[in-house]
């Protein structure tokens, strides 16, 4: 072996570098003896050779005592046993969340299935369908909580705060009020069931005000949708927006599993190269000759800009090419007004 630290390689002797690259230490970092070694730290669950314990309850004893999945969701996420009515309500919500026809989770599961994969890959993929538009329970719930907090701090009524919320977010996909369920009574029935079971609180009350505000401010017919009904009741059941997001996504994944199975049973698999895309479906640059490599400099247009005006002009030009990514603007936290950090 040669000397690791004697050769100049590329720019690695540049004085602009933050430290001396030619004399860097080799080998791994010794174990840190000053702190306790790594362990899996959890407030949720532990197990030993003979027990599995969630939030203090032995899970085998829980099921022997007649508690089930729905109860244990409260145990895992809230460290408590739910009341019978709360268990009934979550059970109701989970039934409604199980299937949604050939919507995105099912479509994703089916596409993954076509590649001849494990079922679990398809079920996992279906969970990835849950974002801030489809099933945006985290976005919905966090906003609900933030506005409720503001109502308390600013001494405003739920109605006043609902109007502010709708004015600010009426175009949001996760408002909870839309034209999606004008003919399907399921969302209304869900809220009515929650009220009948006596499990509603400030979130459902606020949601009702949001519906009223949205109906007053909208020029078209809108009403409570499944996201709004489910999200509000889940919040009143004590689930955080993040817990709700994942519980509903996982519940839908069972349905996606059935879609995986049906796809394999009825449609079969797709091989690499089998899927063709018709030129009629293509609207990118027209077919053009590949320039000889020797002429590349004549054809190549360097990307870098040297002035703000040039940068802006190039940026706007690049927006015209679909899938380049320049036309997309994703929201990031404003450092002057950060969201609650996790």
């Amino acid at each position, binding site marked *: 072996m040669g000397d690791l630290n004697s050769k100049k390689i590329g720019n690695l002797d540049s004085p602009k570098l933050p430290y001396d690259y030619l004399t860097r230490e080799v080998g791994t970092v010794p*174990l840190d003896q000053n702190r306790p070694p790594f362990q899996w730290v959890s407030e949720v669950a532990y197990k030993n050779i003979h027990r599995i314990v969630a939030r203090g309850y032995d899970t085998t004893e829980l099921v022997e005592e007649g508690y*089930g999945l729905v109860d244990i969701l409260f145990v895992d996420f809230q460290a408590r046993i739910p009341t019978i009515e709360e268990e009934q309500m979550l059970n109701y919500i989970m039934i409604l969340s199980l299937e949604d026809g*050939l919507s995105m989770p099912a479509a994703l599961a089916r596409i993954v299935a076509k590649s001849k994969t494990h079922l679990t890959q398809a079920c*996992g993929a279906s969970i990835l369908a849950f974002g801030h538009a489809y099933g945006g329970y985290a976005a919905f719930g966090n906003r609900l909580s933030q506005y409720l907090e503001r109502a308390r701090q600013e001494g405003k009524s739920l109605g006043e705060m609902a109007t502010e919320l709708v004015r600010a977010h009426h175009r949001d996909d996760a408002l909870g009020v839309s034209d999606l369920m004008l003919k399907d009574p*399921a969302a209304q029935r869900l809220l009515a069931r929650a009220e009948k079971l006596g499990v509603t609180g400030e979130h459902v009350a606020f949601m009702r005000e949001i519906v009223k505000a949205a109906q007053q401010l909208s020029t078209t017919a809108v009403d409570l949708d499944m996201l709004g009904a489910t999200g509000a009741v889940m919040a009143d059941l004590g689930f*955080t927006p993040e817990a709700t997001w994942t519980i509903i*996504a996982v519940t839908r994944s*069972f349905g996606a599993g059935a879609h995986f199975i049906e796809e394999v049973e009825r449609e079969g698999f797709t091989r690499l190269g089998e899927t063709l895309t018709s030129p009629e479906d293509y609207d990118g640059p027209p077919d053009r000759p590949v320039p000889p490599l020797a002429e590349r400099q004549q054809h190549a247009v360097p990307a870098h800009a040297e002035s703000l005006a040039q940068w802006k002009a190039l940026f706007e030009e690049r927006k015209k090419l679909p899938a380049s990514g320049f036309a997309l603007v994703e929201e990031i936290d404003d450092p002057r007004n950060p969201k609650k950090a996790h």
Partner: protein
Amino acid sequence: MFPRKTAIAYKTEEKTVLRGYNLSDLAEAGYSFCDAMFVLFQGRIPAEAEEKMLKYEMGEFMEHSMSPSAASAISVIAGRPHLPAAVAAAVMTFGSAHGPGAAHGYMMNQYLDRALAEGKTVEEIAKTLVDEYMDHNQPVMGMGQPQHRDGDPRAEPTHLKQEELEINGIYLRLQRSIENYFHARRKKEGRSYVPVNCVGAGNTALCDIGFAPNAAWCIGSVVRGYSCAAHAVYTLKKGRAWAASRNEPMVQMLDLSMIKYAGPEDRPVPKQEERQEYANKQKATGDYKKWVI
């Protein structure tokens, strides 16, 4: 968005219908989520005992503390993607070692078929199954769990629950026979006791209440997604992103000192002008082959 013929469900502006039942009506009528799982995968309302069995199983399957699935969820959320990515990763850990439910189901179906074809009893085919796996040094599916060395605490109680509910069908008979013969053969060979695991017990019950291998696997693996979500949310809210902070009292999962390297020694990068000779020499000596993965 995805034109398909489907026998599972349809959704209109008025309702969502699963296997012919309006989902909202199903919930209003007081059916449980476990009942709905029978509708989803089997197109039928289950008997009470069957619903109880599934409730028991989904309850016990849900949380298993630190398994590959929970570890995945915790690791993925360290990078702070959206939560569903961590939960999806957790569900995707279920394969041929972690909760291989479908394979166990297919194994049972295959040997039951053979019993029929070969004119053997369930007990006889169980012996055949164990012998064929063990004779070829293959693990008998449904037996053994690396953490619960004396037996998964959920496993035997699941068998007992099935018997208590009087839904012990041909699958439990086969599984019990597999276990009996497996234990006897290992004992005879002077080998240690390897108890039934949660797949052997749980999947057997799922088969006896009518779930096909992949449907059973879906239930067993996806239900774990809930607890993995809890582990991910906990880590998101109470853990450090990146899992490598030196300001935490305990050494973190991805602290540099947690890396133990066992690969080739550090070596100088060859100059480009030496490259061809260097590369040919490496190929000729073949030392690299022990590192090929």
